[in-house]
């Protein structure tokens, strides 16, 4: 059974196609404010990548913060449920899922048999999320994909308190003006994001195994910080960590059928 899942996040739309539980293809497109259009474009791209026609897909499921903007017919799913399912698909033994996204960080504890035990989102503040990283990239005038390698190179970390994204940006600018090495600033920033995620995990509780998903999971420096602060190892996903929620949506559609 060929099923599709679409996750419209705050910053990007992710679309995946599964067949009998195997990942056939996926697409990630930044929203740039064009929510409905991007969902269409993402669908078109993933169909092209898999060589499938839209008619061959038996179920379309939408989830995410912007799911109501998906223009093609679809059923909707709770984001938390999708994240839980997707995480279990990626790693059947996972109990704690830490999803660090564009604007929201979510921690879910799963029951042993799957299913959500408890979940919690970050405070309404962008400082511990992808948004803050994007802000920093702008302030430092570095392309996003250079940030993680920069953090890896740094000899030490500049201090970023980042109680608030606005203050955090101000801190970054202060460091730049003081002539601090950009790599050190980035190292401080990614450390702060990891620490924020770790604090959220501790508010909920930790049960091994811990899986990190979401766009920010691509930042090794953030993962290192998370592990350091949680004093435990985490697992990474084999596929792109940004599509886990969309996978969960597709799986929910399959089950519904």
């Amino acid at each position: 059974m060929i099923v599709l899942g679409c996750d419209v996040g705050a910053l990007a739309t992710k679309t995946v196609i599964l067949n009998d539980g195997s990942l056939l293809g996926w697409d990630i497109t930044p929203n740039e404010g064009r929510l409905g259009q991007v969902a269409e474009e993402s669908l078109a791209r993933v169909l092209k990548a898999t060589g499938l026609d839209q008619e061959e897909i038996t179920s379309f499921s939408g989830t995410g913060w912007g799911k109501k903007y998906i223009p093609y017919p679809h059923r909707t799913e709770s984001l938390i449920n999708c994240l839980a399912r997707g995480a279990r698909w990626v790693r059947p033994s996972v109990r704690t899922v830490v999803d660090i996204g564009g604007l929201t960080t979510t921690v879910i504890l799963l029951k042993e048999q799957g299913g959500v035990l408890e979940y919690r989102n970050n405070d309404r503040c962008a400082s511990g999320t992808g948004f803050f990283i994007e802000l920093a990239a702008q302030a430092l005038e570095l392309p996003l994909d250079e940030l993680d390698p920069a953090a890896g190179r740094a000899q030490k970390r500049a201090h970023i308190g980042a109680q608030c994204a606005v203050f955090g940006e101000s801190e970054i600018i202060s460091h730049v003006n003081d002539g601090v090495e950009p790599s050190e600033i980035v190292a401080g920033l990614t450390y702060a994001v990891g620490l924020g995620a770790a604090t959220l995990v501790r508010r909920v509780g930790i049960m091994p195994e811990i899986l990190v998903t979401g766009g920010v999971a691509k930042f090794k420096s953030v993962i290192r910080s998370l592990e350091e602060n949680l004093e435990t190892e985490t697992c990474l996903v084999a596929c792109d960590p940004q599509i886990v929620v969309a996978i969960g949506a597709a799986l929910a559609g399959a089950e519904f059928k």
Partner: protein
Amino acid sequence: MTNRKDRTILDNWKTTGELATFILAQEGLQSLDDWGGKEVVREILPEKYQANFDMVQPDLINTILKEKNRRSASAFVKNIMEYADWANQELDSGKLACYHYFPISVEIMLSMGMVPICYEVVCGLNSALYTTGTEEGIDRIEADGYPDHLCSTQKGTAGYLLMGLTPKPDLLIKTATPCDASNKLYEWTAHKFKAPLVTMETPYYRNERGLNYMLTEIKEMIKQLEKITGNILSEEKLRSYCLHGNEATNYILKIQELKKKTPCPDTGWHRPADTIFMTQIGTPMGARYFKELYEEVKERADKGLGVIPEGKKERRAVYGYTWEAYDLPLFDWLEEEHGVTYICDTLTYLSPDVGLVDTTNMETMLKGLAWRTMQMPMGRQSMGFSDIWINDFVNIIKAYKANALILGGHVSCKHYWALNKLLSDKVKEETGVPTLRFEMDMFDKRFTPPAELRRIMEEFFTTL
């Protein structure tokens, strides 16, 4: 209508009460759309109500028109109207405007010939009724350099006072509980408007020593009030108001007891109103409001009726913090869409410990009022150690067979945010009930707007 600027808010409430009564009386009107929508309904209204109708939240009107909500709605609008009218008349007759903190019962104020105006209700009721809410009051006080992290339950009114939309205070009465934020805005108000501030300490400990101290504070307060008003507290008058207060208290406790039944026989939309009318404990209209609610709840309970659609599974939600004033329709939506009933929250739960005021003589009455001040919502939870708040909710969840705990924390509440993990850990440990956590601002809808609230709730209740 007084047509006085400083009675704007009172006048608006009166008109809203009248227009709501008018709308409720229209045959066959189950929602605004039934009659062709908001614009059409506006045209059938008498002209004197039209401007006010434009201000009222359309969703709120739709909510109160529903069959299951009509009776409580009638009680609600009657009280708003009557209070506004009464307050205007009393103020016109020269009585002093006494702004007080919401859990301070009004029996003493009434006995000494003052007009009690609850500081928090002035902006809270605006938040509940109108699309414009109380944001302009909030913005006004913040424009003067006062911080956003103060509590919107005072900010709104502080702004209105600066804008001259509510009567100037002749005096203020505040308990030291619950928090520094509220204390400071009362102090600001007293300073700005040159009104005496009468404070009552609430003891940290809930024992004999604590109660004696509370009693001393009430007596001190009375002395100060006697100086300010030139009136002596009469035992007879106090007794008559205390009897009304006991009546209201009795009904509140009875309703609470009935909510233990499954399905819950009480509609949720009026929870914010329930807190608002707790400020009327001690008045005949307060007693009447809770009597009317009780009669309806009892009727349903006797017949085993609930308030959610047929076929939906009941999810009994306890709010470990409280409601959002700007979105009464939310609680109706939760019932209809998700079968979620609203058992209680920190501001509507009145601990059965409260008891009744012994009206034998002045001393017994004052002691009873002192004790009640220590049990009233918010006072009880924040006077002393957080164990009370936490244990109360563990017990409530068990006693009411709740299966969801909603912790929408008010952004300004430092108490709540300091104890929320202790609370949710204990609830998890002792009851295993799933918890939803999010941030909101009780009176400022911009922080977590109604659409966002529904998204958050839907996420939780479809995940459960």
